[in-house]
């Protein structure tokens, strides 16, 4: 059972307030969706929660971000990386690297300085690659992958890190509709669901509604709202968040949000 608790967090970049005294808790078994419009501060928040804020992020000194009741600043980098992982928006491959080598990098926090990945590491990574439909890509150069394949490889690398807490920045970006649902199903069904605490930045409101049990809305003026999906995710709130009229429809016995 892991728990990332955020207390009284305010974030600023230059003079712009991204969120004001935000408090919420991400626990094992929960799937949080983080929604807000472009530039609202979703990524900045996610990086801050992961303990890797950029140097331009200003965090209020009273804020606390605790992993299992220990402030993350007090946890050694490597120990933190064994418990908490983040999927960034993209990975860099300025220097050529194979798909397999890239995925194996996820094992970094678990290996000692002179340790090479062993058979177990390879098995784990190969299983994950197969689960994400990348089994035949092992020796491919990452530069030759499509956007969706890169996204799935990024996820394999994160999952190879085997952390209890997963923070994902737009995990379904670049994915086709089938892969979107496969991926989110994987993350939000048992046994994976019971073992992980997940927070993901999403742009698709309906995917968030379908797969996330908790939602954090980030409004324009630093206001935030966190709670259960059915309470927070309403057409009225979303209209305010995005500054664009959004309405709820019932189609095929499902409710969906559409832009007016």
């Amino acid at each position: 059972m892991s728990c990332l608790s955020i207390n009284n967090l305010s974030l600023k970049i230059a003079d712009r307030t991204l969120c004001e005294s935000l408090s919420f808790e991400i626990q094992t078994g929960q799937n949080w969706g983080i929604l807000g419009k472009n530039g609202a501060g979703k990524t900045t928040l996610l990086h801050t929660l992961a303990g890797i804020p950029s140097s331009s992020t200003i965090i209020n000194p009273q804020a606390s971000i605790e992993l299992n009741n220990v402030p993350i600043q007090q946890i050694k980098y490597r120990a933190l990386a064994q418990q908490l992982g983040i999927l960034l928006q993209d990975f860099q491959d300025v220097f050529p690297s194979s798909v397999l080598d890239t995925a194996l990098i996820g094992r970094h926090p678990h290996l000692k300085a002179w340790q090479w990945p062993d058979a177990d590491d390879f098995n784990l990574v190969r299983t994950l690659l197969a689960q994400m439909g990348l089994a035949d890509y092992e020796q491919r150069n990452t530069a030759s992958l499509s956007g969706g394949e890169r996204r799935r490889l990024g996820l394999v690398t994160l999952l190879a890190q085997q952390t209890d807490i997963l923070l994902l920045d737009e995990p379904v970006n670049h994915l086709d509709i089938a892969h979107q649902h496969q991926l989110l199903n994987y993350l939000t069904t048992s046994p994976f669901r019971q073992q992980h605490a997940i927070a993901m930045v999403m742009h698709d409101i309906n995917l968030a509604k379908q797969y996330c049990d908790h939602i954090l809305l980030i409004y324009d003026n630093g206001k935030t709202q966190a709670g259960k999906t059915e309470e927070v995710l309403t057409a009225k709130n979303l209209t305010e968040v995005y500054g664009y009229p959004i309405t709820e429809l019932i189609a095929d016995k499902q409710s969906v949000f559409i832009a007016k």
Partner: protein
Amino acid sequence: MLKNFSTYWLIGFLIVAAIASLITALLVGSSNVSFNDVLHTIFSQQASTQQLIVQLRLERALAAFVTGGLLALAGALMQVLIRNPLADPYILGISGGASVAALLAIMVGLPLIVLTASAFAGALFAMLLVFLLSRGLKNTHWNPTRLLLTGIILAAGWGAIISFILTFSPSNRVHSMLFWLMGDLSYSHLPTLSFVILLSGLLLSLLLARSLNVLIRGEQFARSLGVATHQLQWKLLVLASLCTATAVTQAGSIGFIGLVVPHLIRLAGIQDHRILLPASVLCGGTLLTLADTLSRSLFSPIQIPVGIVTALIGIPLFLYLLHRSEAHR
């Protein structure tokens, strides 16, 4: 990443090649030396003319090897630090500072030892200048882009000063200045201190090597995997700069080794820096030893700057491997 059979083969091959290059350097040159003379020099104390020649060639070959190793190591580290395949040891203008100091020493006609010392001082000064200027006014941590731009613009500045010095130097000095600028090992003495710096530089960077595998894939990504990136970048900057300063002091600005060698090792399939760094040192040393042997024997008795030979070897070799690796993709 896999430490497999072919990795051992590559390292074995590089060690054999290194020894072969040193032996070649002893045997080849303007006067004939036999393999027997070489053995005699190593195993006996008598000093015949032949053995004196071997002695001189050995010092020069070792200097070439150490310089090549330093350049390749500095290049490999700099490429991770800047996260740019085009980075080489001179990209931050460290050799520019050394060159300006060295050329001034040549212009005034100072003895070799003073020239060497001032080149090293110039390199250290250029290094400090980059450190300070890239940190910015707010004393924030630098990022690679800022470091790169600061270094490139300072290098351009050094280049202008070099041209200025060349313009105003007496013509009888300009020849040796050009040699120094192209890289030249003919003044080299036994490289004891350089060797110590190379060895400790390699050992220290091997301690960082595994983190470099992650840093090369992005700073933020590396931090998310538990790498203390700011500290790591500082260590890299200091190590790479010191290696460069030492190499430039030893032999002037020899091009291509620092840029090409790490890529050669990568193209041979080595991505893990725990292997890549020592392999680069061996390969860089071997290449420069061979290049220097060629530079003093091709048009013997005339010696040409070794920088010309490294370019002549480095460019086609690199283009060939690049072509081959793309065909295999």
